């Protein structure tokens, strides 16, 4: 797909976070956010998802702070001149999010540990895609070149299932990866991993993502939103996961007569 074409294509985005029905009532600990940023040079998409630690008293608040701060940091980044060329350092994002969590901890008169959250971010522009994360969320991308769905960074959960790594924890590892342009992307919380990722091959489950992206390309995000939430809340999905689920799904919409990938 030519860069000029990628510049002008609009993004279609669906985003929702749904609390696990088996857990305590309430909003759940997952928070999602996204922004489409039009600069003089290009159209950028930013998608972010955070999952507050169940063991932390203010896990959801931590997730909200992390999502807001990551969106701010990334928006500032893409609005800079030469945003498409200069390298981005994950340490900058880490510092920014850690500081926001520390400030929130001070406001709440508690420790950062009580705001522990995972975070996964994806930024897509005309010449580059950038992924960054801490913890066990996932960013999945569909390459512009060959339409394959990839999971470039394996969710980091340490060795055992009920242990993970969080923003704000100095022992945590942040990961990032630079990729060529993509035609679609998704960021998701660990609650969706059992149905969205094939653990044996460590790859995204292709029918899951191509099915979702296909619907979004054919339809209008505003009209699909309710069905999207219904899907994330459906009993057949709840049978396969016992956690909150959240997903931001974004596709570039090809113009009339353009190339519509599967």
């Amino acid at each position, binding site marked *: 797909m030519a860069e000029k074409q990628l510049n002008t294509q609009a993004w279609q985005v669906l985003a929702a976070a749904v609390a696990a029905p088996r857990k305590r009532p309430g909003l759940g600990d997952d928070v999602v956010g996204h922004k489409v940023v039009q600069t003089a040079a290009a159209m950028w998409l930013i998608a972010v998802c955070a999952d507050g630690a169940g063991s932390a008293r203010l*896990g959801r608040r931590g997730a909200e702070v992390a999502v807001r701060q990551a969106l701010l940091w990334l928006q500032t980044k893409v609005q800079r001149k030469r945003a498409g060329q200069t390298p981005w350092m994950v340490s900058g994002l880490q510092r920014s999010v850690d500081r926001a969590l520390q400030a929130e901890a001070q406001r709440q008169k508690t420790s950062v540990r009580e705001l522990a959250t995972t975070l996964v971010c994806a930024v897509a522009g005309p010449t580059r895609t950038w992924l960054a994360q801490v913890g*066990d969320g996932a960013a999945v991308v569909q390459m512009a070149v060959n339409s394959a769905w990839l999971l470039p960074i394996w969710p980091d959960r340490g060795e055992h299932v009920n242990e993970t790594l969080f923003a704000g924890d100095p022992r945590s590892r942040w990961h990032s990866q630079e990729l060529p342009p993509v035609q679609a992307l998704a960021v998701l919380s660990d609650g969706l991993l059992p149905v969205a990722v094939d653990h044996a091959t460590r790859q995204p489950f292709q029918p899951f993502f191509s099915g979702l992206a296909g619907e979004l390309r054919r339809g209008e995000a505003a009209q699909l939103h309710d069905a999207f939430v219904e899907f994330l809340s459906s009993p057949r999905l709840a049978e396969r996961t016992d956690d909150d689920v959240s997903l931001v799904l974004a596709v570039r919409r090809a113009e009339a007569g353009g190339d519509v990938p599967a």
Partner: protein
Amino acid sequence: MASHPLRAAAKIRNSCTHTMPVEKVRAGKQRGLGESMVERLPFAAIEFAANPEPRCPCVLLLDTSASMAGVRIAELQRGLAQFRDELQADPLARKRVEVAIVTFGGSVRLASDFTVIESFEPPRLVADGLTPMGAAVQTGLELLRGRKQIYRDNGLAYYRPWMFLLTDGEPNDDWREAATAVQQAETGRQVAFFAVGVGEANMDVLAQIATRKPLQLRGMMFREMFQWLSNSLRSVSQSGLTDEVALANPASPDGWAKV
């Protein structure tokens, strides 16, 4: 002793892969004044990966030396049956909790290799011989290492394993190496090790093997102990990826243990 790793791997796969039925449409949704139509649901056809459940492995190290003969071994046997029944009644735990039993009475024996609770049958326990506890602990740790490798080879996620030692005596073999191995495994968060003494068990030795304070069983409360164990494993196996699980205190006034 242990079954062949490849056979165990095949068993893991067979026990957990299944595909979801794909519903294409929801028919007959009512619209307007009696107008009915077949409406296509946008995301109804999405398929899910056929992923196996994450595993929650637990090794029981059971003293079956001669001193356990009589009412102790009989109560232990009943406790095991209850443990199986309670975990089998839970739809998630029965697919996630895996149990292996190592007995030590005269010799160390793998009485039951790792299996998910839904297909677990407690072995018949026979009390006989001395108490090779050190070798049993080493066997349990080795068994866990092998099991984790099988999980990794099969792309299965797993919880931090549990090891549960029950004895009414003291080791008659060299247990210090085993104690070091347990402490290293605990420090590296490779295992959560619990030790329980029955009757005249040497609690000082147990305190040197386990990093957690060992518990003394009250009387013959084997069944209450196994009820606590099944409740705890059920909570752990259903915890979210990031949840810390608070366990019930077994040494509470009405609990099965004293410290």
